[in-house]
């Protein structure tokens, strides 16, 4: 595409808001009651974090990897790709994130839970709870159907946000390699919703940017305290 820089998200949007949200509606109806299992998996992450320990961290990484793989297959590949030419590329990116979670979280054990003592850890916990419990309610609160609810582990937005929350509160220090794909997805999703004139378009990208700022701020604070204690 020549003059690509002159194209904005609204020029590139190739489906209507109605079609986009119908995708979630049919997805939820086809797979009900898998949503309950997804929420149970989300609750299991919290229980594992509460129990602490190296094995709990690896289990959290496995749960997240399974969720990212499922979204790649069940949503992007099987559904979103039918209305978005980039859908298969999104599926690939989600598979890469699942592999990164398995490598850095399970093999390398980088997501070992620690007590949420610092600000960014508490914020991460709030972000995770938001993605798990509040995010599915947003659509219905804005007038969309309950059947179009976006659920953690099944829909990409709450899965990406929940992952960023976990990256803030699980692990002694940020695992930077796990940030780019969820953040990139949140920005793409925000642009898509903006192009569709959805009133909640800013929620996901702002939450992702906040997570990045908190992670960077936390890392700088740790580095500064180490330097000052020498």
């Amino acid at each position, binding site marked *: *595409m*020549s*003059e690509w820089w*002159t194209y904005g998200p*609204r*020029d590139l*949007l*190739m*489906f*209507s808001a*109605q*079609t986009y949200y*119908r*995708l979630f509606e*049919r997805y939820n109806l086809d797979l009900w009651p898998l949503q309950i299992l997804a929420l149970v998996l989300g609750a299991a992450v919290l229980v594992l974090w509460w129990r602490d320990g190296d094995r709990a961290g690896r289990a959290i990484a496995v749960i997240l990897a399974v969720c990212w793989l499922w979204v790649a297959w069940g949503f992007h590949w099987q*559904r979103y790709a*039918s*209305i*978005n*030419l980039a859908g298969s590329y999104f599926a690939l990116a989600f598979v890469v994130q699942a592999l990164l979670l398995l490598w850095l979280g399970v093999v390398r054990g980088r997501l070992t839970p620690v007590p949420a003592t610092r600000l960014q850890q508490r914020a991460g916990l709030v972000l995770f709870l938001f993605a798990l419990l509040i995010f599915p309610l947003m659509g219905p609160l804005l007038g969309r159907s309950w059947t179009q609810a976006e659920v953690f582990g099944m829909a990409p937005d709450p899965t990406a946000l929940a992952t960023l929350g976990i990256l803030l509160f699980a692990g002694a220090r940020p695992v930077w390699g796990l940030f780019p794909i969820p953040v990139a997805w949140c920005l793409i999703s925000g642009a898509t919703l903006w192009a569709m004139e959805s009133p909640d378009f800013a929620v996901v990208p702002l939450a992702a940017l906040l997570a990045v700022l908190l992670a960077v701020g936390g890392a700088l604070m740790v580095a500064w305290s180490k330097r000052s204690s020498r």
Partner: protein
Amino acid sequence: MANIPNITRRRLLGTIAAAPLLGPAIGRAQQARPATRAIPSSGEAVPLVGLGSWITFNVGNDRAARDASAEVMRNFFLAGGRLIDSSPMYGSAQEVIGYGLKKFGRPANLFAADKVWIADGEAGRAQIEKSRQLWGIPRFDLMQVHNLLSWQAHLPTLFAMKAAGQLRYVGITTSHGRRHGEMEQIMASQPLDFVQLTYNFIDREVEQRLLPLARERGIAVIVNRPFQQGSLLRRLERHPLPPWAAEIDCSSWAQFALKFIISHPAVTCVIPATTRVDHVRENMGAASGRLPDQAMRARMAAFVDRL
């Protein structure tokens, strides 16, 4: 000005052939035929209003939405419509058009317009063949190079296919007012049958060079984005339709906007897209009744400028 219905023998036979497939309402539709304009390179008449498929027909494998799209197509044909336009870039739109044609039957006078949209010139034929299979038709009437992508490679292929009887017309497209300079050069140098471009109350740059050149060179013009993807209509609909719109038989802002476009003498057809049956009927209504003359066109443009 083509405000008198132009019923050719070919089109009449085509409509009669399609009648059993289109249900009992066909008789009513025949009472209100859309006005037509001739394709300069052949003299074949096509209705002034066609049907676009960007966004609206990209509904994936949603059965209910596919049925709704098919219903839009059925009503388009019943109202005398012929030309449907799509592209491989439009997601599932080609497949959905194929679904609609299979569900209600393909009218014999269907004018199938599609595009080739691939950087590799060698892959053009294969893409066109895949598109043809998705539509479920024996051949395309018009094949256009989408957004001028690799036009140097694709045009020789399209001209060869036309010579072999695998296509009837060849064209190029642009949208959003982009690459007009390059389009002008191609129009001046290549034996094109069609160009497709954006023209509406807001995007009027084509009036300066491209539309006069199309007339001079005998190239048919398809107009896309007549409502600026709905934003122009949303802006207009905040105001009441002027009473003098009745002088050109307009009952809505959509018809007002469409009549402005199709009353330009260089324009052959406009292709509004919609998901709604009432809107497709309304759009087809723009090809009936009186069309504005030059003075009225100037009045319409000035009125919209002031809003």
